[in-house]
């Protein structure tokens, strides 16, 4: 590199995604695009067609006899444990035995020469299931005694009973919140290759290669050192590939080892949607005490979550619901309780936000209720209750909010979006428009960053500098589209002061960096960026030592400049210094490790500091609603979002816009619909409607919060961005609510529950018109 003053692709540069060029040419390889190894066979799962029942017989003779079939696998073929429960509770078998617990539960797998043959054969099973009473929803779960899949949690702050009892005003209500399918464009897939001496390699579309490794070993009865799991990239994940990949990887590996052939398992989209977990739908019972000025004095909330048949991640998910049941608001007294209920439905799982969004929605509903009860604008009540100075900074889990910029963001956005003037104009316009009504809302976001299970907050990286000065980078984080690989490569480029093109990004694999955590909880760049920096610094330190020693100068006389290293008064090209270091037998490879400081959490006591820091944002949405049909469109959205000092503003903006639209889908058109038999009937894009290009806001102004930096020592003072923007979409739900409220002259809280489909919106309009009559 010539003597440029700046490297290409350092930290804070708006670089394109590292695979952008491969994406647009179709050359980016996903698991299903790996060239088929010789002898590749294909597996298909056989799924139960009952929500709950006793398996009387499983006759697979016709399956085995079908054309092209190589073998059939059931629980009895599993050499290790018939268990893929990520919690160690042994409540989630690979294949059901004895009892079926949800419609779509895997019973067996068939392996055939082609995928088509396997799919056809799977449908030939003769399965006899004696139906048992099925608990399909939360009402049924409570009526049946309220069996829980995992231990509930209660967070307590102050004396909430006394606070509510003493409050001048009180109200109570219930909110139902819908679930959400991840709808990653690339469905689940695993490709397993048998190796020698019991080894198996698995290519898996997973956010959590280490867990897939452990599960495959567990199912096959092997130590982890026999199993390698690799993933270069996923076609989207959103939490849906955190634990849900285990099933597909375990079955593919089992089939590969059993048949001693490479086996691929790629379920059809319908099977993927039916057999894998989703965002938890919940019902929230809330009671709030407040004063005439709109100050909330006490809040009690109970979150009943439909967890499905097993625990999966429902414990930490519902915990995070409680951690976010304040959103940005100071509840002086609170009691927040989770009720993780067992149902005979697919086991719900991680999904961007991880339970947090449901808690935040409940907080916003409480605010909205208070506003309508007092005849105030909801933004007034939001501003009144937002976290503030030291006296108003304690959360229901007793962590202090020390980095609070929510009030500043809300005020700045209100001004930027011209909230008050537009609100006035829109209400005047509504008075003159009989059918089409407009609504406006501004909602904030505060999201806690860290895994609440403290031990997950660790990461490793492996960096090699080759003798030619090129760098190869590996870490435990996975790439699912979020741009993690690029951000971490930019960090390494920055450390060495070389162009990012010199840093080769490589697939995540368990034999390079072990014992990794899921790429989840928005933590990817915080954890892996730090680990990679530490690895790069270890090598840089050795290069510094070598340069100082070989040139006879002090260490502080060595500095890394763009593309070169200054040693005393001399400058040496980076590549040349590396070559010299190699010749001098300097180790040019290093691992890096990082663990998040300061965090601790005592779940029994309900106290601690589960989060290293908080990310903030605010959004203002305007909608137009047809009050005769319930149809609507999002007219304008303004966003101000905090990413600290951005590692890559282009990628961060993409996360914000994408998260917003995904959240909007959750709260509007994405409706999961089960029939009375417990069958999911919205199991493909023909019936399950995620947003399209034409659903995005007609005007979409997105800005990163200026002058923001992380108060904590995160990687280059950046902030996590994966999950928080999803909840900016609460503004759309509340704007719809505002439009609905117009039909009763803003006198009644619409209590519009998500997903706010046109049908739900019309129902709210009709209900308010009726009540106001």
């Amino acid at each position, binding site marked *: 590199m010539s003597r440029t003053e700046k490297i290409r692709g350092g930290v804070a540069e708006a670089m*394109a*995604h590292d695979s*952008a*060029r491969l*994406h*647009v*040419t*179709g050359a980016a*390889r*996903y698991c*299903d695009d790996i060239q088929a190894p010789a002898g590749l066979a294909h597996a298909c799962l056989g799924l139960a067609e009952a929500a709950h029942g006793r398996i009387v017989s499983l006759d697979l003779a016709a399956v085995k006899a079908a054309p092209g079939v190589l073998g059939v696998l059931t629980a009895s073929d599993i050499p290790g444990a018939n268990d893929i429960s990520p919690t160690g509770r042994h409540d989630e078998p690979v294949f059901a035995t004895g009892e079926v617990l949800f419609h779509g539960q895997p019973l067996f797998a068939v392996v055939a020469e082609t995928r*088509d043959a396997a*799919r056809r054969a799977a449908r030939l099973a003769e399965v006899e299931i004696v139906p048992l009473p099925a608990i399909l929803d939360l009402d049924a779960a409570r009526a049946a005694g309220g069996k829980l899949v995992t231990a509930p949690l209660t967070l307590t702050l102050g004396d909430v009973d006394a606070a509510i009892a003493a409050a001048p005003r009180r109200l109570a209500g219930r909110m139902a919140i819908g679930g959400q399918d991840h709808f*990653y*464009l*690339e469905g689940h897939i695993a490709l397993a290759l048998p190796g020698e001496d019991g080894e198996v390699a698995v290519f898996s579309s997973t956010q959590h290669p280490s867990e897939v490794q452990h599960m495959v070993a567990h199912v096959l009865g092997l130590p982890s050192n026999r199993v390698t799991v690799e993933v270069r*990239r*996923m*076609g*989207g994940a*959103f939490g849906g590939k955190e634990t849900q990949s285990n099933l597909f990887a375990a079955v593919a590996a089992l089939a590969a080892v059993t048949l001693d052939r490479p086996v691929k398992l790629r379920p*059809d*989209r319908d099977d993927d949607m039916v057999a894998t977990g989703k965002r938890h739908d919940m019902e929230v019972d809330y009671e709030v005490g407040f004063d005439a000025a709109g100050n909330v004095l006490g809040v009690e909330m109970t979150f009943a979550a439909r967890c499905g048949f097993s625990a999966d991640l429902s414990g930490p998910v519902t915990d995070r619901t409680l951690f976010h049941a304040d959103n940005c608001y100071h509840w002086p007294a609170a009691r927040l309780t989770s009720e993780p209920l067992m149902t005979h439905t697919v086991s719900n799982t991680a999904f961007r936000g991880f339970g947090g969004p449901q808690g935040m929605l409940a907080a916003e509903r409480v605010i909205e209720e208070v506003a309508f009860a007092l005849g105030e604008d909801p933004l007034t009540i939001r501003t009144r209750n937002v976290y503030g100075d030291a006296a108003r900074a304690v959360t229901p889990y007793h962590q202090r909010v020390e980095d609070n910029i929510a009030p500043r963001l809300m005020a700045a956005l209100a001004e930027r979006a011209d909230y008050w003037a537009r609100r006035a104009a829109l209400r005047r316009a509504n008075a003159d*428009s*009989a*059918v*089409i009504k407009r609504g406006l809302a501004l909602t904030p976001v505060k999201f806690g960053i860290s895994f609440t299970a403290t031990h997950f907050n660790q990461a490793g990286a492996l960096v090699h500098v080759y003798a030619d000065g090129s760098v190869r980078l590996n870490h435990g984080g996975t790439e699912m*589209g979020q*741009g993690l690989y690029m951000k971490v490569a930019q960090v390494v480029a920055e450390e060495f002061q070389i162009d990012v093109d010199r840093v080769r990004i490589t697939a995540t694999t368990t034999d390079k960096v072990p014992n990794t955590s899921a790429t989840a909880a928005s933590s990817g760049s915080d954890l892996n960026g730090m680990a990679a920096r530490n690895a790069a610094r270890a090598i840089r330190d050795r290069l510094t030592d070598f340069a100082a020693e070989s040139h006879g100068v002090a260490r502080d006389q060595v500095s890394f400049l763009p593309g070169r290293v200054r040693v005393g008064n001399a400058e040496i090209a980076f590549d040349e210094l590396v070559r010299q270091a190699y010749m001098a037998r300097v180790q040019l490879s290093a691992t890096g490790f990082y663990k998040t400081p300061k965090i601790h959490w005592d779940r029994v006591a309900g106290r601690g500091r589960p989060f290293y820091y908080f990310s903030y944002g605010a959004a203002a949405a305007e909608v*137009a609603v*047809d009050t*005769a*049909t*319930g*149809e609507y*469109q999002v007219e304008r959205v303004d966003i101000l979002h905090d990413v600290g000092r951005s590692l890559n503003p*282009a990628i961060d903006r*993409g996360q914000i*816009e*994408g*998260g917003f*639209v*995904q959240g909007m889908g959750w709260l509007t*058109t994405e409706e999961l*619909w089960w029939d009375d038999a417990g069958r999911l009937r919205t199991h*493909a*894009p*023909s*019936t399950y*409607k*995620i*947003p*399209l*290009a*034409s*659903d*995005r806001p007609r005007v*979409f102004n997105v800005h990163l919060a200026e002058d923001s930096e992380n108060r904590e020592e995160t990687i280059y003072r950046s902030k996590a961005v994966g999950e928080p923007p999803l909840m900016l979409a609460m503004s759309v739900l509340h704007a719809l609510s505002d439009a609905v409220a117009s039909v009763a002259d803003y006198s009644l809280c619409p209590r519009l529950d998500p997903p706010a489909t046109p*049908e739900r919106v*019309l129902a709210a309009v009709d209900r308010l018109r009726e009540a106001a009559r």
Partner: protein
Amino acid sequence: MTSTRGAIRFLHRGRVRELAAESATRTVLDWLRETEGLTGTKEGCAEGDCGACTVLLGRAEAGAVRYEAVNACIAFLGMLEGRHLVTVEDLAASDGTLTPVQQAMVECHASQCGFCTPGFVMALSALRHASASASARDVEVALQGNLCRCTGYQPIVEAGARMYELTGPPVLPAVEPGELDALEDGATVRVGGFVQPASLDALADILQATPEATIVAGATDVGLWVTKGLRDITPMVHIGRVAALREIDEGPERLRLGAGVSYTQAWPALVRLAPGLDALLARIGGAQVRNAGTIGGNIANGSPIGDMPPPLIALGARLELRSRGEVRELPLEDFFLDYGRQDLAPGEFVTAVTIPRPKPGTHFAVYKISKRRDEDISALCGAFRIDLVDGVVVEARIAFGGMAATPKRAAVAEAAMRGRTWDETVLDAAIAALAMDYAPIDDWRASGAYRSRIAGNLLRRFFAETTEPAMPVRLAHV
């Protein structure tokens, strides 16, 4: 006697491909990925709803080759006959230089996970190739058949503008019409249970001989019988090469659409006939579905939620059917007998639909209600047509989809309107009468109660638009 050819012939990557040993139900997507090793085209849903498998098919039309986006996941291999197949691998120049569409996608940060990206690139390439400029709305319409879960679409729509500002290699490797014309030999193609006649007479003969055959036009519905239902639909008779079924005849009195005319092809003629159809056509499927799907197919498969029958019934359309021996015609509404049952004799097939031109005094509108505005199946679709003379309703035709087991007219409501002055009283009576016309069911698209309520509200919207056209009563999507 028509000659027979035992191979499918099409252009692909600069040469004529001949496929003889393929099964009828093999999809273009599976062939690309599994046989050709061209894995840039992705499977996201295998039902034509996500667009990750979008490829372009070139066909000769009016002295040019028109390239249209279609879903490879539900296109059967035989449907490539006589076409030029273009996939994402065929775009960038041989030295790796990106096309303006690809370059714009990179510059606008329009890919994140990248799995949907090849489909978006293909959909945008079709638009860029076909037009010298496009509005944001044009871009959105071109992308209605493509789902992205990562970006929120904003950068993709921006790329749809940027691609017109960039120069670079040709957007796609277009061929000359002569190269496609040279493939047409008039022979009936027969490959592994796939039968594709090249003339109406040949089609009639084939259906007479094999009345159990599945007739396929665009396969936007039938494709799912195979990819999802794993059904054996052979012999499969594909009508896409019968020129007579692709004719559009715009007469002074009526419009006649051959049964093989796609939504895309019919769109301009339909809008010239009844401008109210424009908004509906813009919401049927996505570009990929409109390019492949046919109005004849939408009628012939008898779906209770097909979007075209309600407006066509309201407009007084007649259906033309043919068997080898005879041609007959019937009012469209009489074709739908019951759920899944149409007035169709063995060996008989739909040849055309004929729609009379509305007269002065005719008011017509069609409204579609769905969970998501675009590319969604109707919860209900209501079409309204009245002929007014001095404020009196001399004729009323109302038809709904999604309200009964078939597309169905609202006979009681129509009777409440006919001969009456078009006023609030008559409107209320007609709305009340709808309850006698329909008893819709609950399903995942909507509850029966919502459908009933909306049916009345849509009639009210129609009243408002016919009596107070200045007052906005529906969302303006711009």
